[in-house]
């Protein structure tokens, strides 16, 4: 029953702009004629806690949250959150992780600490992963918020929407003065998605 359905889980830390990415993805799914639902939790999570957004599209969507371990693709704005979210990934799913590292103060005050190398741990579990320096790229382009567009672009070849649709969605949702830089970020992300250029 999941053949007809695409499940994307987007995760990160409060304040990183996770919700923007899910808006853009939802828009693309709507523009291509899908039924769409998305779900996220606001409130306490904005204060530096974990934020996740579930996006589902297909001919008819019931549950707004992705069934456990049925995420086709996970986009993570932060390394360790990618590892945490791995629990939701289909065994044959794909995870795209930004190498961004955000260590909360509570993780170095005793108790369970921040993992040494979350990316290596994801790799060791044989998950199909693409790790990208999305935050560095975004800063080079001049705006940390571009992590959104870069990660979506890396995922785009697997989501099977035409590039022109993504570009149209960006023009529609992004503030006019940021459209050009977002389109540029999208191009850069698309290049990264090519297997040969993945580190």
């Amino acid at each position: 029953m999941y053949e007809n359905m695409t499940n994307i889980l987007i995760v990160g830390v409060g304040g990183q702009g996770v919700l923007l990415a899910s808006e853009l993805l939802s828009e693309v799914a709507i523009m291509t004629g899908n039924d769409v639902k998305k779900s996220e939790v606001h409130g306490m999570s904005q204060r530096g806690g974990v934020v996740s957004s579930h996006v589902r599209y297909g001919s008819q969507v019931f549950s707004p949250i992705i069934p456990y371990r049925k995420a086709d693709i996970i986009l993570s704005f932060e390394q360790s959150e990618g590892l945490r979210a791995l629990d939701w990934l289909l065994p044959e799913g794909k995870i795209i992780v930004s190498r961004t590292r955000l260590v909360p103060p509570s993780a170095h005050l005793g108790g369970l600490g921040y993992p040494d190398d979350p990316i290596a741990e994801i790799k060791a579990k044989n998950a199909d992963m693409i790790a990208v320096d999305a935050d560095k790229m975004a800063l080079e382009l001049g705006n940390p918020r571009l992590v959104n567009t870069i990660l979506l672009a890396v995922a785009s070849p697997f989501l099977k929407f035409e590039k022109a649709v993504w570009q149209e969605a960006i023009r529609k949702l992004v503030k006019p003065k940021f459209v050009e830089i977002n389109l540029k970020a999208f191009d850069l992300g698309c290049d990264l998605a090519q297997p040969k250029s993945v580190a």
Partner: protein
Amino acid sequence: MKKLLSGNEAVARGVFEAGVKLASAYPGTPSTEILETIARDYRSIYCEWSPNEKVAFEVGIGGSLGGGRSLVTMKHVGLNVAADPLMTFSYTGVNAGFVFISADDPDMHSSQNEQDNRIFAKFAQVPFLEPSDSQESKEMMLEAYEISERFDTPVMVRMTTRISHSKGMVDFDDPIDAPKQKQFDRDVTKYVMVPAHARARHVVMLEREERLKKYVETSQFNRVEEFGTELGIITGGISYQYVKEVMPEVDVLKIGIGFPMPLEMIGKFVKAHKRVIIVEELEPYYEDIIKSAGMTDVEGKIYTGRTGELSPHRVAQSMNKAGVLDYSTPNGFEPGEMFARPPMLCPGCPHRGLFTVLKKLKLTVTGDIGCYTLGATKPLEALHSCFCMGASIGNAIGMEKVNGTGSGVVAVLGDSTFLHSGITGVLDAVYNKSNTVIIIADNRVTAMTGGQEHPATGRTLMGEKTKEVDFVKLCEALGVESVRVIDPLNYDETMTVVKEEIERPGPSVVITDKPCVLMPKRIMETPYEVILDECNGCSACFRIGCPAIYPSKEMTDRGRPKAEIDATLCTGCTLCAQICLPEAIVLTQIPEKVGS
């Protein structure tokens, strides 16, 4: 036209299409965006943030009596505050349509309890509707106003976090021809609830319930979806979506109006199926009503549980346990045990300064509802109770009365919370000669829910300028003899004033006056940095729990990590620099432009 809307945005759209004239609320997750959407997109509707849910509810009643369709929204616990007017409004009934939203929070994403307000509607004997997606959230608003006027009753629409904050496609329609404004009828037997009138209205209310019982049997919102299975599921709200997800072709009776329940329809459904299982979140609300109507063979809570949210996974597990679905946990990756990433006070948050001092003084702190509740989390752990809006003051008074003066009890609550329910607490402290210190952590915004206006911000929800409450004058007028204003990010000043007020007999109020760093404006000063050669690894700066401070890879001779500061997160609040004994934390030498 179709648009992707959250349940809350869809409610706002429905309210607009239903020709509503007035909307009032106090912000509360997950309900807040309903009024924000109305204020932004449907400017023809008068809307306001009221000081609390009781006032909001009373304003809504006034709107209805005045003849305009009215809306009041709140989170589940807000209905506790508004319960007083609700219980009697159910007796009088409405003039123009009146609908209130209870946005419940199963799993407590942002709440102190997960009470199930379906039971509240039954208690108040008001009908309630329960949408299961955004489209229904809109449609049910129109239906709710129809029911309210046709049956002369307030109507509840019960949302949950997953409905309020999930988005789905919604059809837009034109607003209906707004019902003509009905003049207020000065009928004292209907609206003046003295005992003689109320006795008569109670009977009217029960007759209304009988008429509603007939109506719900035919409502399009209670429906059976038939596939010819021996198993039948009774469900409603978000649980309906989870049932459809895991068992798309099982007979379902979907409840859209949950009070009164369509017992005839349910009776037929139960009779037509070999086995009936009820799938509902939280309390066995449907189950208890159905069982007490004599249908004792139905099952439910023994499989689904009574705590937290359901999910496709939980529903599938429950159905597997019931023996009606073959399901096991799908294969996948095991991330292993992970560190926690709890919400915390933002870098530069003025509350951090306050709690650093309260912690140093080892005071018992009764807390309240707001961002500053995060003062309870590690590493600060400087707030020791949290019940409901305004509770901190009463809690401190009681604790001090049994422990005796000098026990060092301090109440901490925010500006919006103080205006919501704290003023009467201060009154009690003065009247009953308490020795507590009441600290109003005034950051000039309702921060936890996303930065809403309140009576001390000088602006209304509709963007107009208005009077600002003067906390000092207010507290003095209540009879507090010592009211002091401090900068909570000035460590020494905060320390001195709190100490003095603890010593002083009689109640005192201390007001902190630094604004929220995020709202309405993001505050970003030049960041600070650590001179690593000067850092002795004492970890004092780690213990204030600032997200901008992290352990360096560089260690001291004794193998302890030195501190570093993330310049993109640091707001330059100076707190860490003030408590750093070796004075290793200094203003960044070459000022960089940070932030966006």
